[in-house]
């Protein structure tokens, strides 16, 4: 078996694959241009005069697809695929093919007026894409750019691990620094360190060239020093921690999180606080849905209904403009009144969880998803209808929801810090509840249910009760989200409770990692923080109109590539990769037997 791998020539490539990925690259770039992404995102600069987000949305394509075109799977038990100039040629070819398709697209768009069908493909786009220099020059430039970037994608395979990491880290760092511009400027302003932020960021947005070089260099340097991918290492280390060590780590992480949560809002400005409050709000809901989907394995697509129930209950209890019942309680967390509101919210949410949960729990998983979706839509349409308008205000909703009160402090949307603190408290409770439940008898019952319902039932798990418990706990957490939302916005309308909210919360859970609390935290930070919620802008507010497109694509991508999520729960990962784990164990045993035999 120990034969020397034969040397492959520089053109010994999977040309079919290269051609395919090249075509994909061209089509993707054409698609991204036709939906108006380049044009709309062009206003946001990443590196001041040279690179805008719009062009970045195009330029990543040849790199990624060039990388994919020359990717060779390292098969288990086989020699690792040999790297070399071949990869460069493959990447270059893929990039050139992609560029060719894209240039053809530009040429066609220039020659034929497509605006009747595709309103976004107009002269402005052509002008932008050809750098204002006419189709011929622009096309040539694109061929060059695309080819070079494709080659760069191929180059990533060839570079030694360390160098590759330095390069990718530097690029990511520059991008991230440009991304968090609002937040950083915000912080530096309140710290009176505008000198630094003025130096890093250009006047009309984006990192300055000098700033980019420094940030990139720093990132590259720090990565050269470290061993391996820090995140992955940390995650594996966390996963292998046991007993006391993990407890200690959790405690420290919790304490650091708490201190950050207390201090950050004071340092940050209004915009960033608003952003963090949104992140927290969705995190709260995602933690709830995580109980239902991640732990118990029930795909609930009508989760927004509970969010709506919480918001409407709060509105009715506190607003003086609630059309039918006006108890006009104040949500004062230090008085009985506030606790009455919360108890009613919890009770109504639990009841609605029971009402929705009971009829559906006997259904098979996919039917359950569709029925809950139906319930969610029914709730929204009923809130919207003239029929129930005397109670819920119809399309006008309920306005004038007063601020919540905690001692001397007033909590409402005009002071996002206060909302953020409120959210943090509830997220803390939710994390604690989820974590304790997960490690309790109930959590184990849910895991059993998720893996095999029949077996779980045979083992004495009360499936009905357990499923309902998941539904109800999830509903209560979502209703807290709704309560905070009502206080934050100051009014509730049916249009805030569309199906898309359920879907976005689901995407958070799935991207983060089903059944994993840190995963859900990461998921909501990344998604809501960067892209934003259904109506709330994120750091990349320019992405607004493409948000849902990206969420959809992300959902598909994650399911295809990483169904366990960014930060998977250990258990879930084992479930999803059972075969591979078994195979690994088998190979290991084989290898051990072999080496024992040789000796």
């Amino acid at each position, binding site marked *: 078996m120990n034969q020397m791998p034969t040397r492959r020539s520089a053109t010994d490539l999977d040309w079919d694959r290269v051609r395919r990925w090249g075509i994909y690259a061209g089509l993707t770039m054409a698609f991204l241009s036709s939906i108006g992404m380049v044009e709309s995102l062009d206003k946001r600069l990443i590196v001041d005069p040279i690179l805008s987000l719009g062009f970045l949305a195009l330029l990543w394509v040849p790199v990624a697809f060039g990388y994919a075109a020359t990717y060779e799977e390292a098969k288990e038990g086989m020699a690792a695929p040999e790297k070399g100039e071949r990869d460069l040629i493959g990447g270059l070819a893929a990039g050139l093919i992609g560029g060719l398709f894209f240039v053809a697209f530009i040429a066609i768009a220039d020659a034929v007026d497509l605006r009747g069908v595709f309103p976004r493909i107009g002269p402005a786009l052509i002008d932008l894409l050809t750098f204002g220099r006419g189709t011929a020059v622009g096309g040539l430039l694109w061929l060059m750019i695309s080819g070079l970037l494709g080659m760069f994608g191929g180059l990533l395979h060839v570079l030694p691990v360390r160098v590759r990491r330095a390069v990718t880290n530097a690029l990511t760092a520059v991008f991230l620094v440009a991304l968090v511009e609002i937040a950083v400027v915000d912080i530096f302003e309140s710290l009176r360190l505008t000198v630094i932020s003025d130096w890093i960021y250009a006047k009309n947005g984006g990192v300055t060239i000098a700033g980019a070089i420094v940030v990139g260099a720093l990132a590259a340097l720090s990565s050269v020093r470290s061993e391996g991918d820090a995140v992955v290492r940390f995650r594996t280390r966390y996963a292998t921690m046991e007993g006391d060590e993990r407890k200690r780590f959790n405690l420290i992480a919790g304490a650091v999180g708490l201190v950050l949560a207390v201090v950050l809002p004071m340092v940050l400005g209004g915009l960033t606080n608003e952003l963090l409050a949104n992140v927290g709000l969705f995190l709260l809901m995602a933690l709830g849905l995580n109980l239902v989907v991640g732990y118990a394995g029930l795909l609930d697509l009508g989760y927004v209904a509970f969010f709506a129930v919480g918001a409407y209950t709060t509105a009715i209890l506190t607003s003086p403009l609630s059309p039918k019942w006006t108890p006009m309680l104040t949500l004062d967390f230090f008085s009985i009144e506030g606790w009455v509101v919360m108890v009613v919210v919890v009770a109504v949410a639990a009841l609605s969880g029971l009402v929705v949960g009971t*009829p559906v729990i006997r259904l098979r998983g996919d*039917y359950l998803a569709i029925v809950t979706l139906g319930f969610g839509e*029914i709730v929204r349409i009923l809130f919207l209808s003239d029929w129930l308008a005397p109670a819920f205000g119809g399309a006008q909703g309920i306005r004038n929801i007063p601020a919540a009160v905690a001692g001397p402090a007033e909590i409402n949307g005009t002071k996002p810090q206060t909302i953020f603190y409120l959210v943090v408290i509830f997220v803390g409770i939710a994390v604690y509840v989820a974590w304790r439940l997960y490690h309790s008898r109930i959590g184990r019952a849910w895991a059993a249910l998720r893996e095999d319902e029949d077996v779980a039932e045979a083992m004495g798990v009360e499936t009905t009760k357990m499923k309902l418990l998941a539904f109800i706990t999830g509903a209560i957490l979502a209703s807290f989200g709704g309560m905070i939302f009502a206080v934050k916005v100051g009014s509730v309308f049916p249009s805030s409770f569309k199906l898309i909210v359920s879907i976005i919360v689901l995407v958070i859970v799935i991207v983060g990692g089903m059944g994993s609390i840190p995963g859900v935290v990461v998921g909501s930070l990344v998604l809501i923080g960067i892209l934003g919620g259904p109506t709330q802008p994120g750091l990349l507010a320019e992405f607004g109109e493409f948000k849902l497109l990206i969420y959809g694509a992300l959902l598909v991508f994650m399911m295809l590539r990483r169904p366990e999520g960014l930060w998977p729960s250990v258990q879930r990962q084992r479930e999803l990769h059972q075969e591979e784990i078994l195979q690994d164990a088998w190979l290991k045993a084989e290898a051990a037997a072999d080496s024992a035999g040789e000796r």
Partner: protein
Amino acid sequence: MTTTAERADFRFNWVDSFLLALRIAAIFVVVWGTVGALALGFVGEGLSGSAWKDLIVAGLAQGSMYGLIALGYSMVYGVLGFINFAHGEVFMAGAMVGFFVADYFFTSGLWVSNFVIAILIVLVVAVATSTFTAVLIEKVAYRPLRNSPRLIPLITSIGVSFFLQNAVLGLVGPAVKTYPQAPTWLSQKISVLGLQIEGTKLLVIVIAVVSMIGLWLFVERTKTGRAMRAVAEDKEIAALMGIDVDRTIVTTFAVGGAMAGVAGILWALLFRGVSFITGFLPGIKAFTAAVLGGIGNLVGAMAGGVLLGLFESLGPNVVLRGLRWEIPVSLGIAALAAGIGVAVLAWRRGRVSVASVAGALIMLGIAGIGQWSIVIPGLTQLKDVVAFSALVLVLIFKPSGLFGEQLADEDRA
């Protein structure tokens, strides 16, 4: 007590009572509303005879369109065992691309001068688009997920659905695109079997029936169709018998997509307006229809579609409107007596269906004696509530459909 012990397989717990209550409520509302609508009709307050007929015709036309979309859900579920949530978008894609062709024909004059040829070409384009979309989705998103846990392809298809919706939104903009007006000879009413049918609706029904027959012949009479049925029955055995399973699955998606494309043009004929969101509601409703008819059952899908169309068109205007009718006290007392009688007589049997009928009768009695009357404003707003309620009720109470599922055991779970 011994009787319950003997029937150990039948434990009636509180979940069952909840479901029974839901069932009673559903029957109660539907019976009250329908009888009410008929009674209101007698005193001349309800719908006129022609309004009834119009509603029925509209329901039939819309229902046959739902049926065509439902075929795609049904076939894919039959073969792969998951809900292809993105099928509504396949339908929308056909209608959308069809619009641009139709619009082109309208400006070039062909639409007016030779409508039949124009609409045929539009139909072909729409079918091609939908077929292509369906096959593309299968290749990109679903093929790598064979044999993964059931919920994973479902979640993927939700992602695909949102991606396609928003891709179309980005490409062609948010405005509703309106198909050009069909020629006047088509909108004239024709008398068929005592029903006055608008030409467009008749055309819709005819096209749907023809496509359905074509599909039925394809599935039942051709070799490919037999392969499809074999794959739906058992993929592994089918593969052992020399059937190319992957290819058959692609064919299934293609045929389902083609039917959705036809439905897209039917939608255009019926409603004329198409936008990126058009696929969502018909998709959900068609899925309901597929379940109602029995997943995997093609004739059932069509029948389920027609039933759902009728229900949706009659539901708000007849059932919900009829709720304002006060049941006469005498009738109420009779219903109450009958209900109690049924309950007492059938108690020992312990049959849920009997219990729900008895409960509904008792509720009707109470409503009559209490002189209940519910007046609902803005009935048309509740059209979708009716559709979604139908979805919920069908899935909860009749998940195997009216005409029987045809599924492999592994997919039944």
